[in-house]
């Protein structure tokens, strides 16, 4: 296996009716179809237990799909190929760095296994460590570096084998919030730079928006929406996506004549707040929080709490009565 086998962008991925049922009958993943062009970064987003890791492991070869399912790299069926011959780079949630090796040895291990001569291996490891900003730490044992540094070692190690597909399972979740935010941007930048087909798993929607070319929102073992971050945010496919991605108001159907039993979803920025006037929906401000660029209001609409945003200079206070209107183009109605 040498460099000329790889294109700069990795392989395209197709998943055909791949599902996963665990012994005991837990259906962790319903039969799923998915196509990923070479070079694209897909984010799997969903709540805990929805099957993200399960799907990722099927792609990696760390578990066979239920009979009838198939995984294809560049159109070639790899369903029965074990992980060590699939050439996938994996970044594990807890990194899986080898404690018996230094930073450099970890990064170079995949190349060593492939029999790459030491000189070219060292050069490649040096290049990668430079890229992730860890050149100084190359001889440290991996249990003597910080969480953020480990995360980058894991990334460099996975990239070193020039994988066909890079798979990242919640690579930031072991870090504290501040570091996570910083590394999110850095990771997005690195992934763009590697320009490699990648699947990134997270349950953090801000991370999904920052990193993904497309986002697959998962729920209870299925992909419920697949689209660009904008699609998912602006045009949620169903109640679950609408509720899971971003801040969302929801009001029950009786407020909307003619819709029967339904629920209306709309984002705080879709709400227009004005002075109270006859014939409009009137609400009471129960809380107002200053956010610098805007002011977030919590309104009481006939007993329902609704979040709205107004320009920061509008002097709205708790106790004020206001009228509100929702932009119909940004209103999503789903039957309950």
């Amino acid at each position, binding site marked *: *296996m040498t460099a000329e086998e790889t294109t700069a962008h990795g392989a395209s991925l197709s998943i055909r009716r791949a599902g996963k049922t665990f012994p005991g009958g837990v259906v962790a993943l319903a039969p799923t179809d998915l196509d990923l062009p070479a070079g694209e970064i897909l984010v799997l987003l969903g709540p805990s237990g929805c099957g993200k890791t399960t799907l990722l492991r099927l792609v*990696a070869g*760390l578990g066979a799909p239920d009979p009838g399912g198939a995984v294809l790299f560049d159109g070639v069926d790899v369903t029965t190929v*074990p*992980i*060590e*011959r699939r*050439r*996938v*780079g*994996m970044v*594990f949630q*807890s*990194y*899986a*760095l*080898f*404690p*018996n090796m230094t930073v450099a040895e970890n990064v170079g*291990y*995949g190349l060593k*296994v*492939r029999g790459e001569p030491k000189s070219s291996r060292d050069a490649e490891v040096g290049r990668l460590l430079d890229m992730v900003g860890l050149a100084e730490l190359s001889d440290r*044992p*991996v*249990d003597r*570096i910080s969480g953020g540094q*480990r995360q980058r070692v894991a990334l460099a*190690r*996975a990239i*070193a*084998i020039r994988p066909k597909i890079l798979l990242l399972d919640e690579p930031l979740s072991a870090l504290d919030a501040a570091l996570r935010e910083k590394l999110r941007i850095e990771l997005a930048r690195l992934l763009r730079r590697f320009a490699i087909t990648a699947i990134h798993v997270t349950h953090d929607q801000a991370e999904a928006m920052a990193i993904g070319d497309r986002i697959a929102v998962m729920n209870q073992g299925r992909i419920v929406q697949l689209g660009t971050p904008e699609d998912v945010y602006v045009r949620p496919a169903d109640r679950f996506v609408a509720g899971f991605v971003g801040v969302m108001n929801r009001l029950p159907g009786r407020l909307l004549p003619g819709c029967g039993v339904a629920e209306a979803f709309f984002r705080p920025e879709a709400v227009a707040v004005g002075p109270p006037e006859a014939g409009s929906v009137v609400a009471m401000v129960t809380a107002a929080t200053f956010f610098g660029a805007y002011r977030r209001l919590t309104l009481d609409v006939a007993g329902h709490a609704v979040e709205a945003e107004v320009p920061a200079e509008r002097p709205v206070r708790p106790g004020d009565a206001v009228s509100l209107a929702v932009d119909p183009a940004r209103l999503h109605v789903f039957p309950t």
Partner: protein
Amino acid sequence: MRLSTLAAGLLTVLVAAFLVVPALVSIVAGVSVSYSRGLSEGLTLDWIFEVWRLYADTILRSIMIALATLVVTLLIGVPAAYALVRRGGRLARIAEEIVTLPLAIPGLALALALIITYGGVRELRVSSAFIVIGHVLYTLPFMIRSVMAVLQSFDWRLLDDGAASLGASPWRRFVDIMLPNARPGILAGALTVVTLSIGEFNLTWMLHTPLTKTLPVGLADSYASMRLEIASAYTLVFFVMIVPLLVAMQAVARIGEPRRTA
């Protein structure tokens, strides 16, 4: 101090004395000119030399047998431990139960079974290999458990998956990842195996022949037929061999506390 504490302390000290005093007596007797006339006769190393003259072969044979036992338990025990941890589940538990059976069966019974089955194979019966077989049987569970315990103390599957994703074959992962990370357990197991093998008597007494006497067999022999000073000096030689192993074993147990995966 409470009365109960005082009593507990006293008992503890008495028990410690009960354990230590005979050993001290034996050490002193081993280097005294005469045990019955006490230390006033002076100290000597003559008994030690006498022990060496009479029993050097048993000491060397015990060391050789311990090392051979160690090699075999390493070769068959470490891979088996890894297989059992990997496999998991009921089958692996049954297999573990069978392998550790020699811990629950008295050595005498095991030795009898071995002699009944293989005693007729003359070349085996008269060689030290017969004793090595017995010792491996008895020490293998310690090696396997020790290695299983370290493997279970870190997330071996995660490391295994990690190495697999980088292209390493199962054997490669075993050698590159599992063996180095299981080292504290292997070391602890190795020390236990050597210590137990050097001191093993129950099996060995039945399995040995006049030409394959080990240190404990020689000890039993000297206790029965030699003067007390020689028996003591011989025991002293045994202490000198076994105590450093024990100290090392406890030190390893302390530093070998479960390591986290990075």
